């Protein structure tokens, strides 16, 4: 009996979908567009986190300039102190000579390199800090170290990093906010689409009830139709996103070369899962809420 009812619900959802094709396609189109937006959001979020990881890695390195004439033992001691610090993941010592080689190797410095007499460059300690938040503390530590070059102590741009941190946390909040708005918008729109459809079929629902159908018998086909609509929309959205994903990444990479965005095929699978599940849930919830009001006896 439950099997029979389920089969009936499936059948009649299917038929209703095709018989009201205009309305069905309207719903599919709306949901598709919303899921595309959601998908873009997920993709951009993923790309952003990829890029941010790279950025964090870069900014969480600081180099400490060592004043000329600092005893080597003092530098080693400080290097030792830093490398045992739990906040630091690595320290590398670069001698004055190494620094000069690096400087001359940079084609930007071609003209300047010829003017240099002797070696005006500092030796430096390159420190890799584990957490971005701790870079400021390490910088303070370095500036208190007597061996630091007072005119040009570190390459740490406190302001800049702090600003980036502020901004990125704000962007994070804004991103979550936008996602929340998008979710609310999509649920409301799906609910509206389906509620409108159901509103205009309330006479039909009334007739079904008059003929003795139970509430779930009436609801079933509507909910299944909603799930169907959601899945079809998700499939469309997914197809478009998958087609557009790789070219968009390529394009971005060639335009904005310095951001290490990469095409991530593994992410497509998780995107597919999210979109299909999301579409089905959206459809089911939308029709359930849409139909509930009119199904009450």
């Amino acid at each position, binding site marked *: 009996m439950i099997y*029979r009812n389920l089969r009936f619900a499936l059948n009649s959802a299917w*038929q209703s979908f095709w*018989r009201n094709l205009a309305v069905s396609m309207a719903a599919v189109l709306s949901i598709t567009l919303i899921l595309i937006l959601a998908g873009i959001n997920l993709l951009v979020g993923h790309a952003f986190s990829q890029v941010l990881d790279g950025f964090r890695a870069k900014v969480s390195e600081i180099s400490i300039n060592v004043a000329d004439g600092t005893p080597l033992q003092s530098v080693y001691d400080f290097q030792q102190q830093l490398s045992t610090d739990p906040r630091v993941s690595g320290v590398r010592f670069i001698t004055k000579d190494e620094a000069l080689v690096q400087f001359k190797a940079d084609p930007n410095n071609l003209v300047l390199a010829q003017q240099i007499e002797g070696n005006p460059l500092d030796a430096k300690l390159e420190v890799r800090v584990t957490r971005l938040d701790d870079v400021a503390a390490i910088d303070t530590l370095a500036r208190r170290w007597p061996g630091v070059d007072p005119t040009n102590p570190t390459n740490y741009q406190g302001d800049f990093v702090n600003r980036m941190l502020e901004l990125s946390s704000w962007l994070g909040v804004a991103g979550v906010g936008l996602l929340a708005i998008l979710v609310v918008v999509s649920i409301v729109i799906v609910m509206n689409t389906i509620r409108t459809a159901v509103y205009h079929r309330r*006479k039909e629902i009334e*007739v079904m*009830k008059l*003929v*003795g159908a139970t509430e779930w*018998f009436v609801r079933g086909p509507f909910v299944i139709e909603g799930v169907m609509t959601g899945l079809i929309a998700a499939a469309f959205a997914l197809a478009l996103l998958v087609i557009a994903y790789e070219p968009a990444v390529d394009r971005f990479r060639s335009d904005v070369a310095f951001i290490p965005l990469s095409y991530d095929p593994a992410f497509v699978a998780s995107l597919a899962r999210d979109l299909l599940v999301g579409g089905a849930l959206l459809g089911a919830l939308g029709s359930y809420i849409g139909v509930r009001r009119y199904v009450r*006896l």
Partner: protein
Amino acid sequence: MRYTARDLATRALRRGPSQQETHLMVLTPDFDTRPVISFQHVWKTYPTGTEALRDVNLVVPEGDFVFLVGPSGAGKSTLVRLLIREEKPTKGKIFVDGIELGRMKRRQLPKYRRKVGLVFQDFKLLPNLTVYENVAFALRVHGEAEHTIHSRAAEALDTVGLAGKENSLPANLSGGEQQRVAIARALVHAPRFIIADEPTGNLDPATAWEIMQLFLRINARGATVVMATHNREIVDLLRRRVVAIDAGQVARDDRSGRYHDDLSKSQIRAQ
């Protein structure tokens, strides 16, 4: 005039069968005396303020066949709507099969309605389902098996003369054909009660007469029938119980009645 269950018990004896009725009498059952439908001081006022029913009292014994007649807007459809609990009475009580409809739980309603076969004045077909599916729907809510549904629905459609129209949508049928689909849907699950509102309004006399034979046959098998109708010819010919409603009140209740009582009939003719 009140109509009691005892009256019914002696009905077959008292009524001398006329010539026209002879072949129908064979189908008429002995009446069980249990009242299955009873209206007790029922009032119905719509939210718009219209007093559609005023202090209606009515007892229908099991197996009875009742015509509801009366002018347009008298309250016949309202009475029908109360009987299937599409509406609740404003005052008074309605008992069907010993249950008070006003006290019935929301969850019991589907089960109750499945016992009833309904024909609506405006058909109330499901516009997105084919003729066959409309009729089958009444069996599906019972959870019947697919092959039972198929054979019974096909039979019912054949009975009302719609074999061949199974796959049409209601919008592609003539008015009379839609009415016959509604009748087939009401009869297909062999309900214990049949409540029909103007089932022959859109039918030509010949088809109407055939459909009436069908109702009589089902009544003969024991089903209780309540039918609102404007078809004077049929009411006058069958001489069954006639309840006349006028301005929301029971104006007349004749055991073997006509459409008009003799007084008003002559008035109408004279117009």
